């Protein structure tokens, strides 16, 4: 099933009088259940593309279809709702709230989903999510008491708390050593294969990209090439 469909997406930043084109016409289709790596050198536009895919920004022109809905022109509030319901984010620097327990960090997005869960429901859902990333015994630890890998797993649990179909990861292993990187990437693979969550990673590390089923490389605002990486056999696993 087609999850994301980009048609001739362009993004131009206006720097004073000068228009700086960053994306120059990107067309892309991502199926549900794929594990995609977006690569490219710095300045290639991969972060901008990520922001547009993640509904943090809107394209200058082009169409963006997410689950059969055209969303390139929707308002900021509607984008916020989409981010809450359908998208999860994992960042390079984890972005956990300091001096806040893991469980409260994970529960934070629930405050904005308009479901008005009770305190107890919120906690049980967050605890369940933390158990899934293997941190059931760290519920009340603060970020400063957790290792980098654990912090990133808390961030993953937070991204998944609203059960989104898509997870975006922006250099998810950038701040981790190779061993914990491997852990996090394995977790991505497991989420992808077991739960069928579509994962889109931005990375410049070829080793990280190697875990992806599909590798899209950008250069100068255009898709330069696409390759099925080692995990290409997984592409068909999705339901």
């Amino acid at each position, binding site marked *: 099933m087609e999850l994301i469909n980009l048609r001739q997406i362009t993004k131009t930043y206006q720097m004073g009088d000068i228009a700086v084109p960053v994306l120059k016409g990107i067309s892309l289709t991502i199926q549900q259940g794929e594990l995609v790596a977006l690569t490219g050198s710095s300045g290639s536009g991969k972060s901008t593309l990520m922001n547009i895919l993640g509904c*943090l920004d809107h394209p200058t022109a082009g169409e963006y279809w997410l689950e059969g809905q055209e969303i390139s022109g929707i308002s900021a509030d509607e984008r*916020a709702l989409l981010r*809450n319901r359908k998208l999860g*984010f994992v960042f390079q620097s984890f972005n956990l*709230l300091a001096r806040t327990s893991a469980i409260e960090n994970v529960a934070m997005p629930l405050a904005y989903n308009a479901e008005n869960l009770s305190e107890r429901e919120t906690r049980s859902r967050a605890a369940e999510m933390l158990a899934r990333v293997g941190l059931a015994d760290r519920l009340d630890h603060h970020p400063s008491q957790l290792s980098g890998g654990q912090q990133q797993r808390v961030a993953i649990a937070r991204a998944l708390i609203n059960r989104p179909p898509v997870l975006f990861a922006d250099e998810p292993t950038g701040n981790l050593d190779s061993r914990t990187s491997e852990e996090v990437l394995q977790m991505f693979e497991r989420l992808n294969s077991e739960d069928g969550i579509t994962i889109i990673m931005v990375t410049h590390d070829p080793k990280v990209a190697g875990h992806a089923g599909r590798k899209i490389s950008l250069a100068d605002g255009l898709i330069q090439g696409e390759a099925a990486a080692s995990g290409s056999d997984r592409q068909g696993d999705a339901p």
Partner: protein
Amino acid sequence: MMIYATARTAFKALRRNPMRAMLTTLGIVIGVGAVIAMMEIGAGSSSALKKTIASMGANVLIIRPGTASSGGVSFGAGSTTTLTPADSQAILRECPAINNAVPMVRARAQVVYGNRNWVPNAIYGATPAYLEVQDWTILAEGEPFGDRDVLNGNRVCLLGQTIVRELFEGLSPVGREIRIKNISFKVVGVLSQKGANMMGFDQDDVILAPWTTIKYRVSGTTLATANQSSDTAGSSAVNTLSNIYPASQLSLYPERSAVQQADNPMPVRFANIDQIMAAAISSEEIPVAIAQISGVLRERHRIRTGESDDFNIRNMSELTKTLSTTTALMTNLLLAVAMISLLVGGVGIMNIMLVSVTERTREIGLRMAVGARGRDILRQFLVEAVVLCLTGGAMGIVLGHGGSLLVRALLDWPVETSPAAIATAVLVSAGVGIIFGFYPAWKASRLDPIEALRYE
């Protein structure tokens, strides 16, 4: 998101940095505390001031008989003889705005003790209630005379400090006898020092006695003829010295002989009095009280509509005016101080909230990335500011109230708890939170999530 959930989030956010939250709140704590303390101490001072001015006679109304005139010749205020002690009782009974009324007679005569003599400024005949009206109930020595003394016309008196000084030279006069116009009076008490009044009249230079005694034994006349300072021979029948030193007062009619007096005794004792002193419930009630007294007296004196009053009612309008301007001044002064302290507290809140927004830019970006809308962020920061202000307000109330109690305990200043001030402080601190929290909150809500996430 419900307000409750927002408040919870705000509390969590504040708890994450308790030091900053505490320092921010401190501004409001001090602001509100100062307001409460100022209001309470101010209200206390204000009502103490009111009481002081009231004790100077701001609530007192003086009712005096009007003028008598004959053939176009007016005899001046106090020359009619229509005001009676019964009028005084009727005023007290029938005027709700009056809480005390005292019938009074005045005399001026020489007072003698041993080989010393003195002419007091005034000899007042009154009832014990006079001391209450004048806020003079605390005596320096002895006991006041009672209502029974008034009924019986007992020869007892209270002396002012000046008279004690002049006649007794520091000895205690209580229990001794003085003579007023050759009538001996037993001194039962000494009035406390009051000093001069606003016109420079020495208020300690008085003798107070039951009005019946003064009326029937001392003056025997109306106010118009009461100025007999050197007249020591009012009761000529008793004082044999008057034959040697004839009374200076001229008699209009030839003196009646003993036979004439026996044949035609004067049956009537005129019970007219010189003035009634009435106390209104409060200075605000004075116009009402005047109207009520006027109504009662016109009815009692059978004055038809259209005819002019046979009495005058005078109030201390100058004092009353002073009282109201002083009170208004105090209130405005306190209000100004209160507003300034709250303004300072509010600016403090805004300051810290702005810093907080900058410091938490990444958090805001993150919250937006996981689905917070601009208005969610706005609400969160506003609620944080209001929570800070309300907490500060509550602490400020405790602090301010405690401070004013301490002032009362240590400095013995008059303090008045004012629930209105507390309610105002709570409302104002919430208002300050909203007003001064809005700009930082609005700024936070306008952040671009991408920029905010990238912020270092």
